[in-house]
């Protein structure tokens, strides 16, 4: 299994290189002017603009620019943004914000989806099952940004009705907040509620259906009947024998869906005004900030690969058969 994973890891390296090249060319040749903002400022001389153009290598051919970028990236230098800010610390700061949302939402959705999906399978065709299925379809059909905007709107309405702030609807934390570790994280947790609820509802819809199918399959397996026949309590059969096996496929799906969650986080962040990775990408694209876009894709590609690796390792833990082979 690990050999398989490593082989896949090796395959993904040329894939990442190829996609980084494609994206670089696409962004760099889009035909706008990254320095348009600078030109509009009064009092900026032509000499300054030319100097900046030279500093950002905008005066060089695209292939050469890509070469310069690769040379830097290999050494861990991701270059500077159009605004002359170092990309790496900027990206890392934004990454922290986004990962808070992504990890929290993923964790909650997995737990809830496994619970709901298993319940639906155990009580197949019950009222609970039908309700869960229906809502899974509803949330599955909802665009992320509409659900996010809906929750934000309802949050604001709730706040107004109560006359005090129950839900935070803007930003990832209160600006200029001072206080100890606990105060800061409680504040951040408060800001997390609505954005992660958005992601949880949508991911949960897909994953609970998956868990239900997988659990149904396991419950109909012979070894479950054997376990029951031996007189093992139904709770133990359910948790020890069935659930553990039924969770194996779900783990893989979660890892594969990681890129989707990241995409959802980009949109959710935009709706709730977080200064995370999503905002970074959207802003960078609007001014064709190649270095930022490149760094963004590099980091997310690495994250996707890491999550796939993590899933493989978890797979080995949950399914001992794959460990020996």
């Amino acid at each position, binding site marked *: 299994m690990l050999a398989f994973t490593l082989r896949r890891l090796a395959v993904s390296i040329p894939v990442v290189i190829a996609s980084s090249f494609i994206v670089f060319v696409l962004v760099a040749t889009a035909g706008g002017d990254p320095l348009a903002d600078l030109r509009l400022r009064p009092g900026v001389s032509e000499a300054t603009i030319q100097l900046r153009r030279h500093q950002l290598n905008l005066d060089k051919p695209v292939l050469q620019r890509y070469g310069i970028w690769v040379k830097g990236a290999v050494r861990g230098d991701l270059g500077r943004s159009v605004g002359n800010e170092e990309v790496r610390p900027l990206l890392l700061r934004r990454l922290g914000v986004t990962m808070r949302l992504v990890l929290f939402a993923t964790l909650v959705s997995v737990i809830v989806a496994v619970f709901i999906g298993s319940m639906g399978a155990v009580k197949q065709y019950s009222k609970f099952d039908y309700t869960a299925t229906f809502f899974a379809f509803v949330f599955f059909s909802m*665009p992320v940004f509409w659900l996010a905007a809906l929750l934000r709107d309802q949050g604001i309405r709730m706040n107004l009705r109560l006359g005090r702030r129950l839900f935070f609807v803007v930003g990832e934390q209160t600006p200029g907040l001072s206080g100890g570790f606990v105060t800061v994280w409680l504040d951040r947790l408060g800001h997390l509620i609505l954005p992660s609820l958005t992601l949880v509802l949508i991911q949960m819809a897909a994953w609970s259906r998956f868990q239900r199918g997988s659990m149904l399959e396991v419950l109909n397996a012979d070894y479950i009947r054997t376990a029951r026949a031996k007189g093992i309590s139904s709770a133990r059969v359910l948790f020890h024998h069935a659930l553990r096996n039924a969770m194996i496929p779900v783990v893989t799906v979660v890892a594969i869906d990681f890129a989707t969650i990241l995409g959802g986080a980009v949109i959710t962040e935009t709706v709730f005004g977080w200064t995370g990775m999503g905002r970074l990408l959207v802003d960078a694209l609007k001014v064709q900030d190649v270095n930022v876009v490149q760094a963004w894709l590099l980091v997310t590609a690495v994250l996707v690969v890491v999550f796939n690796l993590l899933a493989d390792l978890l797979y080995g833990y949950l399914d001992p058969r794959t460990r020996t082979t």
Partner: protein
Amino acid sequence: MADLAPPPVGLPEPATSDQLVEFGVEATSQWRRVLRRFLRHRLALASLIVLLVLVVASFMGGTLARYRYDDLTADFSTGPSLRHWFGTDTIGHDTFAQVLRGARRSLLVAFLVAALSTSFGALIGALAGYYRGIIDLILMRFTDLFLTIPTLAVLLVVAARYRGQSGNWLAISFVIAAFAWMPLARVVRGIFLSLREREFVEAARALGANDRRIILRHLLPNSLGPIIVNATLLVGTAIVIETALSFLGFGIAPPDTSLGRLVAEGAVASRTRWWLFYMPGLYLVLISLCINFVGDGLRDAIDPQQKRVRA
């Protein structure tokens, strides 16, 4: 079928499968069974009817609605009323007309995406599954390349090139399609890998059929079920992706509009003029929900043995 649609009196009985024996009873009865199973699926059937109504309304919208989407009426920022079903926006556009117009654009994009990515995905999958070996390896690595990249990011990068250009919906459809074909390619490859070993393929080859004929006439029709289901669900996915692009400002350019643009603009004013946000949004969710129900019903009808799992 008889219990659902009694034959009209005085007309000759419609041809049954018995009378069609000479035209290949296998194919006819199989799809007939699928149709019957689908018609029995009440939720899917109801969804199909609602969907058809919504689609027809969207495409006929210009002639059905009282106002055109670019009409400026005297009422601005009014809530839903008998005159303006979905209310009006700040400069007096009738939101109902705008929703119909936006839905038309969104649906057009979605159908185009489904058609493009289904054909391309089926082609890649068919070639990989049929020829195996080095061709399979290359095509599947190619597929992996598209699967590894965070789709939304690249979608935004490419769509940014066409940002703000009017009439860019065609480009946007191609862009979305370029990132939607991978799952189908994998499914079709899997089916082809198993089907190509079956006796009927061997028989066809013994009769002198070439590769092209075997793929197009023998293998493809046998994998049509999953392809149809996938294409249906893709329409739903494409609508959602298009709206996401529009929302982030990289979608359909004004003066044209789409459901995504309408919702994105409405979201800003959701507290004071709720209809601008909720009406297009509900229309969008209803379309997407119906498509998913229809797709699910089709899946059950085409392969009743299959467990109902969303991949």
